[in-house]
């Protein structure tokens, strides 16, 4: 049985379609990523799956339970970390954790093993109010509270938004460890580089999945001719390549530009010498493998 099964879910807010006939499945123990920008429908999907909102059309089950009729049972079995910090700011670290344990009829001691890794760095601040914690610490506390009743499915809505690259890396290591304990994890993120850390991903845009597959499959099915280009004057290079015959698209990617080439006769060496003739120096042109971000941009066109 699938841990999560979603069948043609739709939801609108007034005249805006937030979700349009979304369907997907998540297997038990899988780390499933929902990748897309703000406003794509990620939070709406989480709210429906955690029984906080009712879909207009379609059905969904979590652990085989219906999100509309079996909501009470689902709430016992899932953990949810919303995008906005939703713990009690005026309660201490320790009070928050035991409060959530009590709500679910359990104790911190009973399930301490599960949160130990994540909660340990917080132990020394346990008498501090949650509102006074730093960003990284709040995030660890929120995750501990979402886990303290030992859920079998964990929903994390943009846990790494606004978080610096080092803390993001740490967070994903925590998720890998949780996955090893058999918990099914659904996580959303606007950071495309995090996609490769998931078992499978759904690329979401304007309320619809453009593609659901493993990150490797998505990268593997990228069909365009993709090159990286660099020179000593990047903004001039961008302007020139945008108008270049035989080049379909040109976008900045860190210290290079990624271009897709429609002219199959064009060779990297040829483009390099054309650019050099046009006055560019330190020119580099070479084929590269697509990243998830390249794939997203192509699919979104």
């Amino acid at each position, binding site marked *: 049985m699938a841990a999560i099964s979603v069948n043609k879910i739709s939801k609108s807010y007034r005249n805006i379609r937030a979700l349009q006939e979304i369907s997907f499945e998540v297997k038990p123990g899988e780390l499933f990523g929902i990748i897309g920008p*703000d406003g794509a429908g990620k939070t709406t999907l989480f709210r429906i799956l955690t029984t906080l909102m009712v879909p207009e059309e379609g059905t969904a089950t979590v652990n085989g339970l219906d999100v509309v009729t079996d909501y009470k049972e689902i709430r016992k079995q899932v953990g949810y970390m919303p995008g906005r910090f939703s713990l009690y700011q005026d309660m201490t670290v320790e009070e928050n954790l035991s409060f959530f344990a009590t709500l679910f009829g359990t104790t911190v001691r009973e399930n301490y093993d599960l949160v130990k890794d994540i909660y340990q760095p917080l132990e020394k601040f346990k008498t501090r109010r949650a509102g006074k914690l730093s960003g990284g610490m709040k995030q660890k506390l929120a995750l501990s509270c979402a886990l303290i009743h030992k859920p079998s499915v964990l929903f994390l809505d943009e846990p790494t938004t606004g978080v610096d690259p080092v803390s993001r890396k740490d967070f994903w290591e925590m998720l890998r460890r949780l996955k090893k304990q058999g918990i099914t994890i659904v996580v959303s993120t606007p*950071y495309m580089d995090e996609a490769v850390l998931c078992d499978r991903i759904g690329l979401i845009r304007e309320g619809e999945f453009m593609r659901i597959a493993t990150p490797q499959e998505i990268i593997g099915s990228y069909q365009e001719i993709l090159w990286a280009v660099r020179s000593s004057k990047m903004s001039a290079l961008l302007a020139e390549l945008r108008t270049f015959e035989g080049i379909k698209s040109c976008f900045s990617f860190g210290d290079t530009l990624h271009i897709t080439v429609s002219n199959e006769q064009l060779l990297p060496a040829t483009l390099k010498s054309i650019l050099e003739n046009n006055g560019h120096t330190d020119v580099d042109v070479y084929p590269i493998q697509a990243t998830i971000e390249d794939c997203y941009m192509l699919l979104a066109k």
Partner: protein
Amino acid sequence: MDNIVIETDLLTKRFGNFTAVDQISFQVTKGEIFGFLGANGAGKTTAMRMLCGLSIPTSGTGTVAGYDITKQSEMVKRNIGYMSQKFSLYEDLKVWENIRLYGGIYGLNEKEIAEKTDRLLQTLQFESERNTMVKSLPLGWKQKLAFSVAIFHEPKIVFLDEPTGGVDPVTRRQFWELIYEASDRGITVFVTTHYMDEAEYCHRVSIMVDGRIEALDSPKNLKQQYGVKNMQEVFYHLAQTAKRGD
């Protein structure tokens, strides 16, 4: 030098016995795109608040757009633009009303505002959205509009605090193209971001660790200095030396 638009000397901010910003000294020049990086809690926001005239330094000095950040903070505020991801425009006002409001706040007259509004909407290809409520614009559009509004009064410097968080990949890049245009016009862009590919787009980058500036150079030189291939690795290298508990 005329060309320097931001200059700090041993700029420090303490809260009780906690030193949020610890003797930072640096200069930013006209038209420069300056990336201001650091881990959460490294002191970026506090430093930026001082530079915008919103927080008085405990010690040290700073000038922004030629004005002293301690003694002339009101003049600083008039000569800068500011935009963040968290707050930019009024959701319940129409596109033109937001522009009108900000133009008025910065002391432009009706005629200037009307002319500049037309030009702005044209450049962004937003003419058809003139009467749209900001809340019904897609996020990426909002951010582009917010940036244009932040530089509507032609400030010498614009401060951007994580302007592209959560924005889709294409719009994020279009946003940076707007940044480049502003920089070409001579506006200095002071920007924070958690996207390390965006750090590569800056002319120079500083990285704060535990309240101090631990590195400051062009992305190219920083990568060379640390012997790594991208800014992400430069960042990991430095941020991992942090002792301050986040």
